[in-house]
């Protein structure tokens, strides 16, 4: 697997790199995915404890994801070109999967704290 880690990717306007190291790219995407999923779960528990219902919870989730994006960009030391090939990956990846985990733990925590 380590031998085939250098792959050619042709540029199509999004990135200027002719080739990049795909294995490190996968590692970076995995880090972003784990961070976003964990923070979605924690955000869901916090929203349930605070007693948010309806639209307020989704606004809270949007705020949380915005803060997560800013913090991830800060972790990449503000030079996205070194670690990713496009801005969309670090800003938008994992957004919808995190939303489902958020809603699950939000209803879970709300039920435990406010109903039972």
């Amino acid at each position: 697997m380590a031998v085939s880690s250098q792959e050619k990717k042709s540029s199509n306007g999004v990135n200027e790199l002719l080739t990049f190291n795909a294995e490190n790219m996968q590692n970076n995407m995995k880090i972003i995915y784990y961070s976003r999923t964990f923070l979605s779960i924690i955000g869901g528990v916090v929203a349930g404890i605070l007693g948010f219902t309806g639209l307020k919870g989704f606004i809270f989730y949007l705020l949380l994801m915005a803060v997560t994006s800013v913090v991830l960009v800060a972790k990449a030391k503000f030079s996205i070109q070194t670690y990713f090939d496009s801005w969309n990956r670090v800003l938008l990846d994992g957004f919808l999967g995190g939303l489902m985990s958020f809603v699950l733990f939000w209803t879970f925590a709300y039920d435990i704290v406010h109903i039972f």
Partner: protein
Amino acid sequence: MALGFAIGVFGVLILFHAAYSTIQYRGLLKITEEEFSGPPFNVVIELSLGLVLCMWAALTVPGKFLSIHPDSEENRIVSLPANLDFMIFNHRGKVFPVEMDLKLKH
């Protein structure tokens, strides 16, 4: 990394403690028959503190970002750990066009 993990566990414990405080607060409100408008102030402080700790843990535990440029310092040599006879070096020869019609010289 173990420190980040410990901080994450601590943040989750703070969240559980805040949840328990809110449950007790709701029990108190049931007794006095008031409406629930929001958790008490110290629970909100506790939740924000737990959130900050978990955010810090979510950044440090999964690992560091690795550079994807083939010509950065840590990507120059790719070597299989088992066999040092086969090593791959990243250099600019990759972008030369391949000559497909080489003829055997005889």
